[in-house]
């Protein structure tokens, strides 16, 4: 799965999780999206695991500072 594929799929998940329209970019972070609080963050992570059929390791998503980091993590786990 290429990074572009991951960004494409991720955009679909963001569209489902957030009411507001959010454009997925590498620099995008939680503070940029009003709805992206700790609660929706949990939903987002669970939805990503389900849709990419991956399993994150405990604590590792916390280290991702923005969408770019998150995509790197997804890429790591989809290998």
């Amino acid at each position: 799965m290429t990074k572009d594929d991951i960004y494409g799929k991720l955009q679909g998940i963001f569209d489902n999780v957030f009411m507001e329209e959010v454009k997925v970019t590498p620099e995008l972070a939680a503070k940029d999206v009003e709805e992206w609080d700790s609660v929706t963050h949990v939903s987002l992570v669970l939805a990503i695991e389900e849709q990419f059929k991956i399993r994150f390791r405990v604590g590792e998503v916390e280290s991702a500072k923005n969408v770019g980091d998150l995509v790197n993590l997804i890429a790591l786990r989809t290998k």
Partner: protein
Amino acid sequence: MTSQTEPQPDAQGANLPHLKDLIRRADAAAFPLLVAETRRATQFALALSLNNLRKRAEIAGLGPTDRATLRVALIGGATLRPLADLVEHFTSMLCAAKVDIWVGEYDSYISEVMDPEGELYAFKPSVILVLPAAGRCQYKGTLADPVADQRAQAEAVARDLLDLCQSAADRSGAEVIVCNFALPPYFDPGPMRSSSLGSDYSFRKYVNTQLGLNRPSSVHICDAEFLANRLGTLRAVDDRAWFESKQPYSAEMLVQLAREVAETIASLKRPAKKVLVLDLDNTLWGGVVGDDGVEGIEIGTTSPRGEAFRAFQHHLLALSQRGVLLTVCSKNDHDKAVEPFVRHPEMVLRLGDIVNFKANWEPKSENIRKIAAELNLGLDSLVFVDDNPAEVEIVRQFVPEVTGICLGDDPSLFASMLRDSRLFEVSSLTKEDLERVSLYKQDAERQQLLGQSTDMDAYLTSLQMVGHVASFSAVDAPRISQLINKSNQFNLTTVRRTEAEVLEVMRSDRYEAFTMRLTDRFGDHGLILVVVTRVDGDDLLIDTWLMSCRVLKRGVEQETMNEILRLARRRGCKRVVGLYVPTKKNGMVSGLYPSLGFSAATGEAGRFILELTDEAHFSSHIEISRSDV
């Protein structure tokens, strides 16, 4: 979830783009589609997006405007979001309600229930969902402890939890739904897992059973154990999500749990379905009885398909035994349609199990309306099942109140489809539920036996009728007089008599008079016949003969004649004379005497004569019991 009867994960959400489009265009079709997609959804991401679409649809004003508001509080020993979002969505969709949600703090449920001044009660919930901490459902001790100790601890855990729920119900007036405990998926501790109540597995299982068996009526169980088993216990847990955000279960399991909560709330508000309307060909048996004949249909243990149909019938019978009324609606000739029920040895269902039988060539929607009307039940208590998608679709269009299930072409799945339909679930069974079926059956069985008009003799025999013949008595006099003065149709002479005159007939030697009560295996018809005869020289004259039309052509006419002949012989008469006095209403008996072998008297209209012979006797299917005549 890969299963026999549920949509495959990949097939889910296929309608999402269409749904988004409908909402964008503020199309009213959006909401029903949203409900349908929600029913099917098992994926977490899909459920989230349906939740978002619902909110958008509501903002666009697409939801029903007359929805009631449900106030649902969630409390528990885990983080209750995103579960609460899912509960809100499923409840709103499956209960057609506006849902307000209040969520308790992580693992504060005990203090929230205990504080009468707290936020929980200030919210004024109509439903409280309790998700207890699995950590509190563990045996404190060793695997080797005496079972009695382990059992006592498990019972105490269950009792404490139910007491807590009862307090919440008492203080709030809300219905309380408590989740029981999913079983751990791990092998540990091996063989002792099931041979000691000290293992988490057995301990939780025992606590769950105790919760269910001892719940008070305002506390309802959300069966997380069952849901996790159904899903697979390995898939129900997510240890990472527990450590990171104290999620009680995996995302997939949260969806199952939320749907179950919604179903439970819905079942509190609406009654279960009462009537199952069944197609026949390729639904109850394989093949078409009209073409293949009763010998050619597939039912029974001689083929796998036949066995599947038979198993389906067994399930239907089980439903009937817990109060669901079985009815038939089939495009068939009636005589052919009933044949398998009457004489196919492998059929499980018999005519007596069907409370209403419609086999004809009218549209099914019409027949279904008739069934509801005849059973005096609302259309929304009916479920229609058919193997033919076209029939199901037509019924959906013309009788939308009726729930339609298309069984498809694999009879091995029919029983499972009904078992998973969630339409006939019961939270309790009352005596009335169980009696309802037999009550409807009494009426229906008479009708249906009559429906087999092909064999009238068999029908009459099967009724097991007993006629109770008795001379007039003072006790019966009011009823006799009432019948004499009320009966118009089956009444040969329409002679009226007061109660005093009836008593006079009773005491006079000139008269021989009697009544008959009729019972059959379905019940008592009461006093249905009055005869007054008068001795006139060599003649026994039938002064009065009237009968209730409800028992017409059952053989009562024949047995009445036998009784008259017996009395004539006893009184030494040589002839029986019948009179017919026509009125505007009694045309139905104008030919009665000729049909019983009387000849018209010459020159005297309405006078019929039967010469008494030793062998004169009429046969019927009524057994006669006699008193005092």
